[in-house]
């Protein structure tokens, strides 16, 4: 332990208690950077004092939730203090009849979903299912803007957040939005925090809009070895007057999975309409469960690099045609043009080329060269830098993690 680390330990111990400060270990590394110490404040007041103390001493703080996506974004320039949100935990408010909840940032998504699903008379859910979602914390999901298959119908965290509380690096405690679903009072600062990769503020509490758990689900799948058939099938589902929760394309499985969540009759009749008018087949029972299990975590399971891709929905056919033999696994939301691909490091340039020729972009989420990507527009990037300078002028929070080295 260096002398300065000992001083920091002492300083933060005074702020949050000895039990909540420790020396960092190799497993605490963020993007390969090992912090000096790990501090776990218990509430927003302690977050504020930790952040102001760190800022006053020129220390860099990187917030961490469940750590499931701690490597997303560019590696931080430095990391002195890892701020764990694990103690800022619990559901503050759940008004089931209003389909709204307020939850602390360190709560895991898994815990939240279990609680929401188990209120007598109200079985509800936050309609977010990001990869490694069970152990992911609410704060981490906000910071990474992570989403999963449900995105097709319910969007990303930005679409479901109705309010947020946060702490800036100078200790300012702020809130935007509220706990009502309709509200245009004040700037929507929470939108800036979604996907900010911990560079603007430490989120301490989030209010979400919830949805009821569906009474029934029906799954339609189309199997084909032709990527163009798969793309065409998905596009036709998009044009049909049905409301699927999930439309995912999986390769090399050669599958499009369409899921309807509704009443028993609503789900069944919509699924039947797809098979009757477009094709595919309904699967249920053990087959459905087995398929769901097999696809969960795809394309993350297995070795290699993972990239998040985005392109115009109309270009996914072009992309997949060039990538079907190059990538080891592809999961796309064809109606949105987004998804993730897994591939061996030696084909990185080919994958980049494939994305480029489809007019899309890719950011690396696992493997060498992991980054937050590059901003598309220089003036927009300048505005982003100005926002960062206003909210975190000392660059205390996760410097370098955001696009453009912010």
């Amino acid at each position, binding site marked *: 332990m260096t002398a300065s680390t000992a001083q920091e330990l002492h300083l933060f111990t005074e702020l949050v208690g000895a039990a909540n400060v420790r020396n960092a270990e190799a497993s605490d590394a963020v993007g390969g950077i090992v912090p000096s110490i790990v501090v776990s404040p218990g509430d927003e007041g302690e977050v504020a004092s930790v952040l102001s103390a760190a800022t006053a001493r020129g220390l860099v703080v990187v917030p961490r939730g469940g750590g499931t996506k701690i490597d997303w974004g560019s590696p931080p320039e430095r990391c002195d203090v890892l701020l764990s949100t694990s103690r800022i935990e619990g559901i503050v408010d759940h*008004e089931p009849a*209003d389909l709204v909840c307020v939850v602390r940032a360190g709560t895991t998504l898994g815990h939240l979903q279990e609680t929401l699903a188990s209120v007598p008379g109200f079985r509800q859910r936050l309609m977010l299912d990001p990869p490694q979602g069970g152990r992911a914390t609410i704060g981490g999901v906000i910071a990474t803007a992570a989403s999963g298959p449900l995105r097709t119908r319910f969007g990303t965290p930005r679409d479901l957040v109705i309010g947020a509380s946060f702490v800036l690096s100078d200790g300012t*405690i702020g809130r935007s939005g509220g706990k*009502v679903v309709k509200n*245009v009072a*004040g700037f*929507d600062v929470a939108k800036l925090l979604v996907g900010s990769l911990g560079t603007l503020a430490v989120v301490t509490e989030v209010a979400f809009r919830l949805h009821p758990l569906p009474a029934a689900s029906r799954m339609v799948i189309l199997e084909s070895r032709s990527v163009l058939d798969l793309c065409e099938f998905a596009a036709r589902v998009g044009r049909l007057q049905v*409301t699927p929760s999930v439309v995912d394309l999986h390769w090399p499985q050669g599958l499009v999975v369409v899921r309807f969540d509704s009443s028993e009759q609503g789900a069944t009749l919509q699924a039947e309409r797809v098979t009757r008018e477009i094709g595919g087949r309904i699967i249920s029972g053990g087959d459905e469960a087995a398929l769901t299990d097999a696809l969960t975590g795809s394309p993350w399971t297995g070795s290699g690099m993972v990239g998040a891709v985005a392109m115009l929905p109309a270009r996914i056919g072009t992309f997949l045609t060039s990538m079907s033999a190059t990538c080891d696994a592809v999961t796309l939301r064809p109606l949105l*043009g987004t998804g993730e691909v897994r591939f061996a490091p030696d084909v990185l340039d080919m994958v980049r080329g494939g994305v480029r020729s489809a007019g899309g972009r890719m950011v690396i989420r696992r493997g060498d060269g992991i980054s937050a990507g590059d901003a598309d527009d220089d003036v927009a990037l300048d*505005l982003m830098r100005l926002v960062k300078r206003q909210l975190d002028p000392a660059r205390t929070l996760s410097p370098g993690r955001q696009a453009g080295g912010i």
Partner: protein
Amino acid sequence: MLDRTLLERLRAVVGDDGMITEAPALQTYACDGLTGRRVSPAAVVLPLTTEEVADVVRACAEARVPFVARGAGTGLSGGALPVADGIVIGLSRMRSILDIDLENLQVTVQPGVTNLDVSKAVRPLGYFYAPDPSSQQVCTIGGNVAENSGGAHCLKYGFTTHHVLAATFVTADGRIARLGGTVRDAPGYDLLGVVIGSEGTLGIVTEVVLRIIRVPESTETVLAAFSTMGDAGEAVSRIIAAGITPAAIEMMDRLAIQACEEIVHAGYPDCGAALIVELDGPEVESTAFLRQVIDICAASGSTETRVAASEAERALIWKARKAAFASMGRISPNYYVQDGVIPRTRLRDVLEEIGSLSTTYGLRVANVFHAGDGNLHPLVLYDNTEPGAGDRALQLAGLILDACITAGGSITGEHGVGSDKACYMPKMFSAGSISVMGRVRDAFDPRDVCNPGKALPTPRLCGEVPGMYRPHEIEMAGLAERL
């Protein structure tokens, strides 16, 4: 007085026909839908392109002259109120639909395109643009972006922020940026997310890419009558709690129904409260939910339910609802329209509180509102010729907002903070929260020239009281209604 060099510089950008400097013509731009507040600008410029907007903004910023962007001026919170001796940048001449991309379900428009024209352009193809503010015939997409507009159907479909993919944006110092992207997940901060709903205080959008969605297969509309507002409120809470997401749930009280019937004759039952519930989606879903809604209404004490049997019947139900604000003139010489939000579970309590405030103040309050998302629009009726009545109406309207805040709600659901409610912001947000918003604004507009004094409280503003309602010209001409 404005420096003549700036005026000449602006004239060089937009030409003589894009420039208004004569006092009578400037009056048209002196207010928005909040007609009680009027300020004449030094000049109005009407640019035609993004580059012209950027040139105008740059000229203003360099001269440190404030500017205010304006669409159709239908806003109800004074968000487009000019700054004295400042410039109004009218975007009404930028009204082209630039691209309809059905393959990717995106439409690119200029900011002066009206909301309804977007849906009109794509409806024959089987698509629509979801946000539908009540002024949609005249209000513009640029204004919708500024206000994060909703509408009756945002209960199911969300607000403007959920339907804008990208925008060309002129910064407060006159640079041109591209925010968001037609390809999703643009790296970096979601600047577009904070620009939407910032009431024109961060910059000006000059091109907007909107998401369009498939027209639903079927729509069902039911009108349910109740003896009391409390019962109707209870039905709303139960519908939401049952997990049904109707496209719209609107509520009207007896006073509002009576006023509408005088004008529209839609045949609403004579009752204490009426609910309009609209369900859309795949036919199988909307019909099943319709049955469930009717059952819930019955269990909550509805005295009658009437399902629209045809498109004409549906249109008539909505016509009465949409005429509600305009019809207030039949029952009161003046009225103040309030806009507040409460958690949907608190409808019964807050409506009762509004009732007792009405009794205490001796002023009638008509309620017409978006009940499904808890967005109240109490209309405080008064007679301006009666001494002190206007002030009492404002006080009462203010107490209704207090009740909304106490119930855990918001001071505005859709009309915006503008210049009208800036002083209420500290009731809802801590000084720290407001300072963070101020810092975001400083990042975008350090010179404080882009629609200054709106959305966030300033000491100067907060010595003043909220504005009083007077009908807007376009409303008087029957071109728009307030909901």
